């Protein structure tokens, strides 16, 4: 029994060292990539896809606000502004020039946390301008490192269970 235990422990050590080298937070996460269009101060949702990776964090600047709702509860909110682009250049006479330019029409993307089913709501200066339902079938493709990590976790649980029995 002790040999089995040592075998398990060494296996876990090797796997955890391997996993340490090749995994991180974003590998096992998904985000919802929203394809949006901005035109005349309003925003339309052109599509969405579930993608593998980390969603963007909560941003606080901009007149526009996106909310992700699940079961009518807000699970994510973030600010943005697709109506303006800044351009800058330094050099001539040691001066900076460029300035902000208003955008009339632009396709843009937001990556928000993935939820299976829910709603997207977008506001412009707190006035609702878009409300759309979405339903994403969660088909998460686990990476090798992710599987390894999960497997190590399962092993730890099993060995902990065994240790409990031994003691």
């Amino acid at each position: 029994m002790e040999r089995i235990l040592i075998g398990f422990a060494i296996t876990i050590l090797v796997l955890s060292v391997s996993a340490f080298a090749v995994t991180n937070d974003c590998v096992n996460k998904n985000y919802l990539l929203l394809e949006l269009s901005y035109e005349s101060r309003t925003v339309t949702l052109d599509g969405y896809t579930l993608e593998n990776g980390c969603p963007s964090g909560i941003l606080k600047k901009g007149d526009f606000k996106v909310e992700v709702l699940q079961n009518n509860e807000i699970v994510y909110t973030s600010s943005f502004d697709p109506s303006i682009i800044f351009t800058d250049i330094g050099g001539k006479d040691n001066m900076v020039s460029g300035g902000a330019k208003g955008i009339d029409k632009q396709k843009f993307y937001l990556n928000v946390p993935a939820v299976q089913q829910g709603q997207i709501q977008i506001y412009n200066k707190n006035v609702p301008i878009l409300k759309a339902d979405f339903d994403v079938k969660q088909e998460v493709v686990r990476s090798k490192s992710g599987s390894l990590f999960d497997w190590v976790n399962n092993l730890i649980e099993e060995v902990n269970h065994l240790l409990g029995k031994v003691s």
Partner: protein
Amino acid sequence: MFHINKVQILVIVIFAVSLFFILKINQENVEYSNGNVDCNLVYQGKNAKVNVVFLPYGYSDEKRFFEDVDSYVNGEFGFRNVEPFKSNFESFSFYDIVSENIKCDVTDNTFICEDLSAKRAAANCPNDYIIVLYDRDAIRDLIVPIRSSAYLNLASINTADHRLVVLHEFGHIYGGLADEYVEEGIDIDIDRFQNCDVKNCPRWSHLTNSGCFEGCGEINFYRSIDNGIMKNYIIGREFGIWNEYLLALPLQS
């Protein structure tokens, strides 16, 4: 009550070492399987609230990209050494990703990267703000100068410009700050841009170390510092006390 023999002690030690590596996993470099893109940790803030990802464009040498990122993070004009990022450095984490999938273009002498490809690449790391560095030759840029740009949470940077251009663009995307130089034909929404104000500057007039200088995007508005980074990053070396306050504000909540 409990008998622990040498074998059990050995097993416990091995588990402890394993646990250490597993806990460390989230803090180190990684390989993302979908596209074989590495997310490299440049600096992990101890109380990180903001994640910044650097992406390359036009680099023929990865080492040069890493050196540029290091310069923009740790250099004299980098986040580590310019207020208010200097005092709040532990609130930031920085990553870089070597990806060849970033699509950018130069339109009207402005360097602008595609939102989609940048966001997809940046998703390999924790990401709030994305900075694409365009490895532009200084001499070529002298002949045909191009602008850097900031749109949504994405800054597209011409590396031939002054190093402080990164913090200037970051001031736009992170801090929501307006340009403080005056450009003809620009209309500034004074309600939106807190770094500009009307005459007498009531927004920051209570601050002793600030001024009220004519011109902030438009000639009719006023700024708090004569030559700050948001007005002229070639000669300005600081944001100014009011802008520093505005930039540090999101980190307080």
